């Protein structure tokens, strides 16, 4: 058995490279904004998750007069019914966070599946799927949510469902767009040529190559979901009183803004910082993926 020609050359082989996914993570981590974003998110998630352990009082307990100024009993004063603002704040993050994360997960999973299938089908199925998505997209997310609440009532599972379903088309669009590019590439043709099954191609060949835009879109959707869920709570359609919820707190304590702003300022700042944090992380990924693309093109 003769070897064809001289070996392919001296050892220009670069050292073992990290997996592409890891490269993206490291690239994102390298940005200052990702670190800041991550810090904010960890801070607030921590607040939401373990906050209740530090709450000085029970969130439904009356500790002083309504809208009382900050005092030793109530470090940030009391709310519209005389409950401790700090305690209610420390308890109030869980619902927003869990609902938002859950609905984002649902929306992203659905969206990925639909987007991939549509991109690969490129025929009637693609049209049908995308037209359906278009119809859901004909409404602002909040309007659909409100319509649903109008009939069924402010049920938490409904919020998760509606936010998830309205998130899916937006994710599907992005995934489909990215996948269309990938589907045209020759390695997909090569897999088809040897007869790899459709599903294996979609999830084995195509999906790993759309992770960058997917991650960016997912963090964007998380930001939106947090905004939407907290807005719905703010409007009174999330957790019902007397439960402690950041969105609800903001609305409840609005009346007393001129007297005692903390009941509003604390939760508002928390939600604001949380959304800024997730957004920064998403942007970090976005820049990292562009950096990777640019690096690849320069070769």
């Amino acid at each position: 058995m003769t070897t064809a020609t001289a070996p392919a050359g001296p050892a220009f082989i670069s050292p073992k490279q990290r997996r592409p996914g890891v490269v993206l993570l490291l690239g994102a981590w390298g940005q200052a904004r990702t670190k800041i974003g991550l810090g904010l998110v960890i801070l607030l998630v921590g607040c939401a998750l373990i906050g209740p352990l530090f709450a000085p009082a029970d969130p439904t307990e009356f500790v002083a007069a309504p809208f009382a100024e900050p005092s030793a009993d109530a470090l940030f004063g009391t709310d519209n019914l005389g409950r401790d603002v700090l305690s209610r704040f420390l308890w109030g993050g869980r619902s927003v966070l869990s609902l938002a994360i859950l609905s984002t997960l649902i929306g992203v999973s659905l969206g990925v599946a639909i987007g991939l299938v549509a991109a690969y089908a490129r025929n009637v199925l693609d049209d049908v799927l995308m037209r359906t998505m278009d119809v859901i997209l004909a409404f602002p997310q909040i309007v659909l949510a409100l319509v649903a609440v109008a009939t069924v009532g402010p049920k938490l599972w409904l919020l998760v469902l509606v936010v998830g379903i309205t998130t899916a088309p937006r994710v599907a669009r992005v995934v489909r767009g990215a996948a269309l590019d990938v589907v045209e590439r020759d390695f997909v043709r090569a897999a088809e040529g040897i007869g790899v099954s459709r599903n294996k191609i979609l999830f084995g060949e195509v999906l790993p190559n759309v992770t960058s835009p997917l991650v960016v879109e997912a963090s964007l959707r998380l930001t939106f979901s947090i905004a939407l869920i907290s807005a719905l709570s703010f409007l009174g359609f999330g957790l019902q009183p007397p439960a402690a919820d950041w969105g609800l707190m903001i609305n409840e304590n609005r009346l007393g803004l001129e007297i005692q702003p903390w009941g509003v300022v604390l939760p508002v700042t928390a939600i604001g910082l949380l959304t800024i944090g997730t957004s920064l992380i998403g942007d970090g990924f976005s820049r990292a993926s562009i950096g990777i693309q640019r690096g690849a093109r320069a070769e």
Partner: protein
Amino acid sequence: MNTPALEHGGPVVEVDGLRVDVVEQGFDIVDEISFQIDAGEVLGLVGESGSGKTTVGLTLMGHTRRGARIARGRILIEGRDILKLRPSELRALRGRTVSYVPQDPASALNPALRIGTQLEETLSAHEFGSSRAERRERLDEMLDEVLLPRDQRFLARYPHQLSGGQQQRVGLAMAFSCRPSVIVLDEPTTGLDVTTQAHVLDTVRDLCSVHRIAALYVSHDLAVVSSLASRVAVMYAGRIVELGPRHELYHAAAHPYARRLIEAIPEISGRHALAGIPGTAPRPGHRSSGCFFTPRCTYAVEQCGREFPPVERVGDDHEVRCYRHDDVLAEATRDRKPAQALGAVAPEEGVIAADRITASYGEREVLHDVSLAVQPQECLALVGESGSGKTTLARCISGLHRDFTGELRLRGEHLAPGARARTLKMRQEIQYVFQSPYGSLNPRRTVGQIVGQPLKLFFDFRRRETEARVLAVLERVAMSPSIADRYPDQLSGGERQRVAIARALVCKPSLLICDEVTSALDVSVQAAIVELLRALQQDMGLTMLFVTHNLPLVRSIAHRVVVMSEGRIVEVGPADRVLDAPEAEYTQKLLANTPTLEAVA
């Protein structure tokens, strides 16, 4: 009207000690670049990808791509150092005294503006002519010169409504419009088919000689350059390693790289052994001290690794940068080695038979009633220009294209149109290697996983057996086993293509279809891959269908040739016969228009 007048006797273009480096990290892209061009002369600047030739071309207009800057040197155009000009003076220079013809006219033309607007604005920006009527006249003149229609309707079109050839002519017209003294042409015929390319080259040659324009023709294609340029400069890893008169360079190059490069070019006149150059050129930032070609050079001695060789004269107007140039020249202007004749192939039952295939893309019919047979153990070349249908035919055979009528048979058995409809065995027997090494490997998988994928599908081996086979086939294609852990992004184009070939060979197919597998590669790499394929074909008795538009390449690899044009077979026959004495008119025309090194005598 201003005519390009030389204020001083001497070369129109004079570049001295030019260095361009990367702004952020400071390492050089090109350095120590020096050359001259006289009025009416065409200097060819030749190099493979990464050599920096485009960078040099752009500097003649005082321009660099984003992230790069001109660090050192002088560039004299008509006696003025353009690097010392103020921005407004530089702007006045561009388009007026020095023009640029871009490589890809499709992206260089603004998609939102009409052709007429874009043609005209160079003239008005430089206030060419004293009135609109004069400019209009000049515009008409330009269009005639590049053989484009003069009428208003044509000028009202948008770039996407023009063919590739027309777009390139518009690019030429824009460049020649203000009667510049210097023109930089950056591979302007890439992507054009051979006939259009021939027209464009003729136009450029005529315009330059008639108007005494100094031209720098940047290209990777030596054959094309040889038809235009009187002198040629060869670049390697950002340096000019040899510069001399065309015929001297081609027949007696003094630099090892230049010589190897010329030996790598397939020639249409006879069957030559193609020799590739192993390894890859060092990219900016990875260049060590000493001569950059040392690791790949067969003449290298210790001195070569210490310091980059200085410029030395080896003849009239012929310079080289090599310590061993005497030995290189002494190795006689050897003629290209004739390759071993390809073994004769007995005509038998064809491995693949295609019978009256008519294929379409949607409504458009691209193959009309095509029939052919591939004999066992032969390499059949499928040749044609873009649009001839050769790739479509190859895809039909491999099961990647289903929209056709007619019959396909594998050793007498009927082949279903799509790959999915075929049996496992049939899919295993026909393997395909794609054109673009950059798109045919999944960037998220390692080489080992990519090559092993067909094994997993077709056979039921244990992991150890799979690994062993993968490593064996990688060795077959001359790749080190450690490559199995790498990701495709870490490999060069040639290496990727070897991986693609390995993937195709790992399950021991009966038929290997190679679809333009070298078109996206540099000449030296192309030569290596073609040699690899030829050796594999001979050693393994592989039956091969080799699709290409590059006629000269056919000689080096194929037993028989099928020539296609516009969806039909135009000529079939043994490679030697078809290329030496073509019978079909189309084949004759194709051969006539193919640029060759032979023209350099």
